[in-house]
Structures are given as structure tokens and as C-alpha cells.
């Protein structure tokens, strides 16, 4: 059966608030049971609206949302049995931690002993055993977040939604929590749909990532594929740093490669991502860490460019070098801090290059 593996199925879902602009535009998406799916996109891209439709706080204007094969378009949120973690935790300030955790159990009229046992188990799960009697305001941001996660999991939902849950935490804490949520997911086997605008967070945590822009999914793929093989220039740009060059396809080659002409007239070889036609406008994309500072030393460098160093930013483990080429394209190069880079000075000339396999021609 088709529904056996997938827990949620969006079928041609559309959502508009004003009847003119579609916030979510003909969205079709299948979420597999037990997977960690991230909806990634800039603000206003429709990712949060998608999540809210799944949670039941928004109704789709068109299309269908299926949960375990049942249409849930008009099902009230409290009947869906979906756990949810909110951006600012949404812990009830007038209840203690234990009361917060017991809330979903009490509304389900579970026995007192059962509730107590589950609360203790949930507190242990997020390593906050001694905090039952505290109020949310007495906890740090990270602790509140853990309680919010525990509260969303305590009634054992199959599906948990997280709406930018780590947005309010500082960087270090955020990284720790990313790991913890990931670990919880693996241990409990629940399906998690996670919304974020932080691409690094999406890459770290997800099994699959759906990149949203203008109400549409631009690409749905695993983190590796998304980073290594972006299908559109939007995805290439949004996920990770990138260097983009406008170009035109010259000739297609048999081995998925093509020869393109840069705006300055230079010819380079790139990976053809799609069915490209000669003469088609494309964007060339090269990751900054794939640019080589010493193009002549290593084998496989297929393209070279020359430019003036505009800025060098030292970041400890690597350096960011901004170079402007003769035809005014600005490049970012990430150079690992492995060996001393002598002779790099602001205003100096620099020759750099890349391998054809690292350069992708994306249709515009």
C-alpha cells in the first residue's frame, strides 16, 4: 500500500490569505514514517504556513493533506495527535515544569499514577530530572527548550512538528540542542518535521531537506545531495556559500559536462545539471572551498581566473579571501588554514582555479 511508508501526504495543496497571492503554491510532498524532514527557506517562503496547515492552525485553500491516509483538512488541531514545539517554547508560565508535562496527559484523562510515571520518564529523557517543581521562568533558554521538546513527545505522538525551535538560543547552545534533538529522533523513531531558515542547522539534522522559495519546493533531497548537487541557483545560493557566474551554454558534451562562455568571453567546462540547450543562459556555481589558490600545483584544474584581492578575513581554521576579477565578478575563496599562505596581500593579484566537476551549470 502506498500509505504504509508515508505518514503525511500533501496533495496539490495551495494556501492564500488574500485570494491573490499564493503563500503555498501547489505543494505535493510525501513524508516517510520515521524520517527527519526539514522545511528550509527564507521568511515568507511558505514553510511555516505549510507546517501550520499540518498542525491544523491553518486550513488549505485547495488540495488535500493526508495523515496516515486520512484527510485532515478540517480536523481540529487537538484531534490530530501531532506534537508541536514552538519557536519561543510556549511553556505555560503559570504551571510548573511537571504540570506543563502532565498537561497533554491530563487532557487525555490518563490515570494519576500513569501521568506521574510518564512525567518522570520524560524529565529523565531530556536530562532535567530535578526540575519538576520549577516554573518555566526559572529555567534557562536551553532547559526551557528541552522541556518543550519533552512536552511534545510525552503523549507519544507519531509525528512531531518543530517551528524554528532553536531560533532563540545562542550559537553554542543551539549546536548542543541540534545534537540532542537528532539523538532523540533516532532513539524514539518518531517522525519529525522541522522548520528552520538556518541552512547549517538543516544540513546537520535532517534526513531530507525541502528547500522552499515563493511557496514552492525548489528541491527535496538529502543534505549531501542538496549541497553537492543543487538543482537551481536559488538552492545553490541559499544552502551554503557560493560563487555564481552568469554564463551561456556553448556546446554540450556526452559525459554530463558542457562548455560554457562566461560574460568576459572566457570558456570553462561545467557539469550540466539539467537538459541544457546550446545558447541557453545559465548560472555557474562553484563552492568557495573548492576554489584552489595554487591552480597549477594539483591535477584536474580545468579553469583559471585572475583577480585583485579585495579583502582577507582571518577566521582561525580558514581564511576568506574576496577577489574581484577583471569583468567585475566577485569571488569568495575559503582557504583552509593548513599551510601558510604567503604573498596574499590586500590589493595583490591572485590566480585561482577549479575542477570541472566542482562547477555546476544551473538553468536560470
Amino acid at each position: 500500500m502506498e500509505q504504509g511508508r508515508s505518514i503525511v501526504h500533501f496533495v496539490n495543496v495551495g494556501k492564500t490569505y488574500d485570494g491573490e497571492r499564493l503563500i503555498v503554491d501547489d505543494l505535493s510532498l510525501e513524508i516517510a514514517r520515521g524520517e527527519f524532514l526539514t522545511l528550509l527557506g527564507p521568511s515568507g517562503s511558505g514553510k511555516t504556513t505549510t507546517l501550520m496547515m499540518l498542525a491544523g492552525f491553518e486550513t488549505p485553500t485547495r488540495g488535500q493533506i493526508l495523515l496516515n491516509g486520512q484527510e485532515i483538512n478540517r480536523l481540529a488541531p487537538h484531534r490530530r495527535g501531532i506534537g508541536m514545539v514552538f519557536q519561543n517554547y510556549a511553556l505555560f508560565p503559570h504551571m510548573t515544569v511537571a504540570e506543563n508535562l502532565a498537561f497533554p496527559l491530563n487532557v487525555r484523562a490518563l490515570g494519576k499514577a500513569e501521568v506521574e510515571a510518564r512525567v518522570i520518564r520524560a524529565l529523565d529523557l531530556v536530562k532535567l530530572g530535578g526540575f519538576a517543581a520549577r516554573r518555566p521562568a526559572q529555567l534557562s533558554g536551553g532547559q526551557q527548550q528541552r522541556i518543550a521538546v519533552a512536552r511534545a513527545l510525552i503523549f507519544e505522538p507519531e509525528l512531531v512538528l518543530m517551528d524554528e525551535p532553536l531560533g532563540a538560543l545562542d550559537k553554542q547552545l543551539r549546536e548542543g540542542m541540534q545534537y540532542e534533538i537528532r539523538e532523540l529522533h533516532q532513539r524514539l523513531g518518531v517522525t519529525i518535521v522541522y522548520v528552520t531558515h538556518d541552512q547549517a542547522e538543516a544540513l546537520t539534522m535532517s534526513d531530507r531537506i525541502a528547500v522552499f522559495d515563493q511557496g514552492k519546493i525548489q528541491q527535496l533531497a538529502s543534505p549531501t545531495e542538496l549541497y553537492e548537487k543543487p538543482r537551481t541557483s536559488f538552492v545553490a545560493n541559499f544552502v551554503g556559500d557560493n560563487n555564481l557566474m552568469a554564463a551561456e551554454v556553448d556546446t554540450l558534451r556526452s559525459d554530463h559536462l558542457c562548455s560554457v562562455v562566461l560574460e568576459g568571453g572566457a570558456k570553462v567546462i561545467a557539469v550540466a545539471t539539467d537538459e541544457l540547450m546550446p545558447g541557453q543562459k545559465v548560472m555557474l556555481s562553484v563552492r568557495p572551498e573548492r576554489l584552489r589558490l595554487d591552480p597549477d600545483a594539483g591535477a584536474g584544474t580545468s579553469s583559471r581566473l585572475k583577480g585583485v584581492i579585495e579583502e582577507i578575513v582571518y577566521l582561525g581554521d580558514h581564511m576568506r579571501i574576496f577577489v574581484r576579477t577583471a569583468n567585475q565578478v566577485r569571488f569568495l575563496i575559503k582557504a583552509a588554514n593548513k599551510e601558510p599562505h604567503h604573498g596574499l596581500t590586500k590589493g595583490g593579484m591572485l590566480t585561482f582555479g577549479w575542477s570541472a566537476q566542482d562547477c555546476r551549470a544551473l538553468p536560470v
Partner: protein
Amino acid sequence: MTVTAITSPDDSRSIKRELTRSLRRRKLQAFVLVAPLLLFILFMFIYPIGGMLLRSVYSPDFARAMPATVAAIAEWPGSGTPPETVWAGVARDMLALQQRNEAGPVAAALNVEMSGARSLVLKTARNAGKLTAPYREAMVTLDPMWNDARIWQAIKRLSSPVTPRFYLAAVDMKVDEAGSIVSQPEDRQIYRSLFLRTLLISGVVTLCCLILGYPVAHLLANLPLRISNILMIFVLLPFWTSLLVRTTAWIVLLQKQGVVNSLLVWSHVLTDETRAELIFNRTGTILAMTHILLPFMILPLYSVMKTVSPVYMKAARSLGANQFVAFTKVYVPQTFAGVAAGCLLVFILAVGYYITPALVGGESGTLISNMIAYHIQKSLNWGLAAALGAILLTAILALYWTFNRLTKIDIIGLG
């Protein structure tokens, strides 16, 4: 970040001194800024109220007006009629009062203690020149009422400048002829039931305001800004209308031939003969006061509800609670601070309300404040008015204190 600890005691003492100095400067600045308001409150609020409260226990006017009597009556134990020295003192004081033309206040004060004493005092003062020793016979001849032991007991009570009699009167008690404290006779008890009625009506008004105000405040806090701003104007509109206009508008609406009654008759709910008594009674007071005090409930509720993020309701719903449970278990408890503030504000205002009950209250809708006003303006028994006021003030402060204790929120910042 590292924190350097101050190790040597000398160091720590000097840094504390510097801290105090820098804080003192800031405190001084703050004090100078609030000084004008502080002075204003001190002279226009605290001082007159203090003076008024003092009147409820301290009443030296009688003793000052009748020095000879007061000196002589101290010896008298208080049973039967006093010895000749006291009679002589009264005669001397009366003569002096008559010459200064100041017998009126004394007569009024004594009349409060014993009805009929006014004319007795004024008559005696008028004839004080003709009185000769022995004064007892002369005065009894002038008016046999002087033979009544109660008049002398009243004089003895009045001769002490510090007195509990206003407070006793305020709770329907008195000192009887034998000097013990007893309740007033049934037909003269008014203040105790009036206090109770005041508390009851204020409670009902507060409850009505809460029931009517809570949904409105909820709407105001949750509707889009454009609509809620318009609604807010409707809430605030009464504030910009004179209290008298609003109260008299209710008279127009609610009187027997008024709009409401006519509508009810027109729609055959009532007949012309059975027009409802909606005003000049308790109903009128409750209706008008609820309307007038409603904004004082809505505004504190609104300000608290505005801070309750709608995400809590969503969270509760996602956790499996239906609308009703989410509202009662998650939303309402978070607005308790506003409920407490609003109720306290409305209740305190209602307890001391004067104009509206005076205009629409009739017989059964008058409150204790109307009685206080009566004693200030009409009967001129300021001591009793002050005692009633002091009891009211104490009751409210006690209520406020318990409320603060129970809700653990400090609304105004006292206590």
C-alpha cells in the same frame, strides 16, 4: 568574562563607600524630581485626610467652649445629678458663651448626644445673665430638663477631648447611662446594615463589570489593531463624558416613563400599570455604577491580555486540549493578574462611590458615602463622618492587603 574579587577588607570598605556616594547622588536627583508631587500630595491629600481622621477620635471644641464645666465635672462620678460646683460652672460658661455669641456649636454638639438639648442650651444661654446662686434651683426653674441625669452624662462624655463615641456611633453602638457600651435600639441602627449594603452592592457591581468586561477585553487584545482601536475608543468614550451626564442619561432611560419601560410596554412585555421600578432603587444603582465603572475593569484586563501570546492557546490545542479546556486552563489563569487588578480597582471605586448612588439610588440604593456626605454637609457631625470614613478606609486597606497576599501581585506598589 572574568570577575575580579575584592580581596582586602580595606579595599572593600572604600569601594562600598564610593558605591553609597554614587547611589546617594542618584537618589537625591530622583527625590528632587518627585518633590513637587510629593509636596502636593502631602499638603492636599495626606494632611487634610489626617486632620479628618483625627476628628473621629479627638474633639476638643466642647471642652474649649466650656472650661469651667469641664474642670468641675471631672470630680463627679456620673450617677444622679452632679454637685453644685458643676451647675455653677455651666452657668458661668453659658454666660461667657452668650457674651461671645458662641452658644450655637455647643448646643449642636450636645444635641447629637441627646435630642432636645439644643433648645435647652440656647434657652439657658439666653437667660444666663439672670441666673443666680444656688444655680441648681435657678436652672431647673428655667427648664426642668436640667434635672434629667442623662443631660449631665452627655456633658461629661463631651468634656473629654479624646472620645470613642464617634466610632461607637458609626457601628450603631453607644455608651449608655451606666457608662457601658451597648448596641443602639433596633430602630436607630443604620450604619452596620449600610456598610453591609455598600459592600454587597460593590461586590455585585464588580462581578457585573467582570462578566461584561472580560469578553470585551479579550476581543480588544486579540482583534486586528485597526478594529481593536475603534473598539477601544468606544471603551474610552465614557471617560470623556461627564459623570453627571452619564448618570442622568440613565435616569432618562430607566425612569417609569423612560425609554426602557416604554419599549417594554410597546413590545407587550409589560403593561402600562406594571411599569418596572428600574431606578431610584438598588437596581438603578447597580446598573448605572456598572456602566460607569466598566472601563476600569476593561483596561487592566486588556493590558494583561495583550501580554498573553496567542501561541499558548495554540500550544494547548496541539497538546490535545479542545477550545474550552485550552481557554480555561491555559488562557484564563494567565489573565488572573488583570482580573485581580480590575476587580480591586472597581471594588474600591464602588465602595466610595457618591454621586451616582446619590442621584439614582433612592432609598434602597444609597451607600455609606452618601451618609458620610450627609454628616459633613447637613448634620455637621464631622466626627461621625470622619469615623465612618476611617472605618471604610480601614476595611479597604485590609481588603487590599489580603488580596495582595492571596494573589501575590503588587498592583499599585504598596505593601
